């Protein structure tokens, strides 16, 4: 089992007002899954993905990656865990504005210590793979939202992660580009056997997933 989530709870506390966002989530995810976490606004999708991605702390429970509980490791080990194992695609504006498409894709590999030639090669072929071979020298503000999201997917994949986490990657796209993006992710999932977990509240998008998990008020619905 790649990821095991056990009795996960998350309570936000702002000015002594407690908001329970996740109330005891249990979820097993296997390598190579193409999984969507679907639910209405405020249901806890972002909270769950942030915790799975090691970006936020939980209130109780455990998140095991191949039996290692990432909620128990130090901040700096967590950063290098994210760097090596997880690719992130956020809702929008994922890219570094001052770097070109190819430089953005190279960036994570640079942090990983991949040598210049290899990372340039991998970045270019990834961008070609996501259909942006012509756009490698473009800066983010010279590309459409859909193209930017595809660069973000290329960046996540090129670094060879075990899991790609995508929080509403299609929310800022029109339905055609959104479906195309999910289609692309699905192809990459099959080609490279990379696990994808993405959230959405869009029916069309969730139907493209191999497995759907519904969440409401911080609980998984059976």
């Amino acid at each position: 089992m790649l990821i095991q989530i056990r009795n996960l709870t998350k309570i936000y506390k702002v000015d002594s007002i407690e908001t329970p966002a996740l109330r005891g989530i249990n979820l097993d995810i296997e390598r190579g899954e193409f999984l969507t976490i679907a639910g209405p606004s405020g249901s806890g999708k972002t909270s769950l993905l942030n915790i799975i991605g090691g970006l936020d702390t939980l209130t109780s429970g455990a998140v095991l990656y191949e039996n290692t509980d990432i909620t128990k490791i130090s901040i700096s080990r967590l950063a290098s865990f994210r760097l090596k194992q997880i690719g992130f695609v956020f809702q929008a504006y994922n890219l570094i504005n001052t770097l070109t498409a190819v430089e953005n894709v190279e960036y994570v590999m640079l942090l990983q210590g991949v040598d210049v030639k290899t990372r340039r090669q991998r970045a270019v072929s990834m961008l070609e793979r996501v259909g942006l071979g012509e756009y490698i020298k473009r800066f983010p503000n010279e590309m459409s939202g859909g193209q930017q999201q595809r660069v973000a997917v290329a960046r996540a994949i090129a670094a060879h992660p075990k899991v790609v986490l995508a929080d509403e990657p299609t929310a800022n796209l029109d339905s055609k580009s959104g479906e195309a993006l999910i289609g692309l992710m699905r192809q990459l999932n099959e080609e490279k056997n990379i696990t994808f977990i993405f959230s959405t509240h869009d029916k069309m998008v969730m139907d493209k997933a191999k497995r759907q998990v519904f969440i409401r008020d911080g609980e998984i619905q059976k």
Partner: protein
Amino acid sequence: MFTFIKIALRNIIRNKRRSLITVSAVGFGLGALIFIWSFVDGAHIQMIENYTSLLTGHIQIHSRGFNQREQLEINISNPQEIINIIEDESPLVEASPRIKAFGLISSPEYSSGIIILGVDPLQEIKVSSLHKRLKSGEFLDEAESNEIVIGESLARNLNVSLGDKVVIMSQAFDGSIAAGAYYVKGVLDTGAEEIDKSVVLIAYDAAQELFVMPDRASEIVLRLENVENSPAEALKFRQLLSGKGLEVLPWQEISPILKQWIEFDNGFIWIIVMVVMIVVAIGILNTVLMGVLERTREFGILLSIGTRRRQIITTVAWESLFLGVIGSLIGLCIGYFLSVYFGTAGIDLSVFTQALSSFYMEAVIYPRLSLGHLLTSMALVLFTSIIVSVYPAWHAANLKPVEAIRSI
């Protein structure tokens, strides 16, 4: 590393307007600092030059103890031998022996206490500018031994003028009474009241005779090619002449007041340095902090995908350093060209300084660019730009990824 530098540079370029304003502020600040420092240095050099060339010289050599107690008994025997040693070592240094004694001068009507200087007319004109400060008459001339040059105020007090006879009385080296009659050959107007009312000049040969001290001198006055080398040259000659019972003093030790005054002025420069550093600090801090706050989301993404805190800090520090470097280069050019241009053209302050102008200050100041001060100014500006990046860099590096990403 290179990628972080690239990100920093491109952020500067992206915010053209803001960066331009910042580097201009840094540039003008540094340029002004370099120029002001050159100006003050130029004024100081002029002041030192005028002051030392009037009477003091750049370096004085005495028998040990003379500077403390100016007595005739403390004198140098065989001064010519010492002058030869110095001229062999440094052919371009000018040297002149003097006899210095206290005495009384009398005209038929009045008398006054004075300092008697016995100077070698041919050598004296190479080490001091007394001969250029004549109000009337002429400077001493070696051949004649009964001529005297006196200050303007003294001439007035004694009620004598050119050609009149005065009598000098003092005590000779051997204890006998030294007395002689002299005819006023020239009247000095140095602008320094202390000199004009109490210094008289007679020929060195005449003084040796008057004070019964053949082949002796109270002091040897040296003039270097460049007054700025005085302390170093004094040290060199001190070593060269060691074991002879002499003291070799640069002007700083002979006129500590002037030295202190200049040091006080230099202290003032540091206030200007501080002001410029504050301007630079505020300018760069403002730009970098604004840039960082605007990019909160971007830093959130950078941190999420695995960027280390120190890499974030590096990026922000580079940005700040680049602004500092570009601003410094602009400032360097401004400061350099202003200093060099006015260094030859001069700055005429006659409109402002009528009251100030005196024997040591002139109306036209020639700024003097000093490499040391130029590098100090630049280094301080660069140092400031780095220091100032600490807060924005720390802020960016300590963002919480999740919260940073939520903010747009």
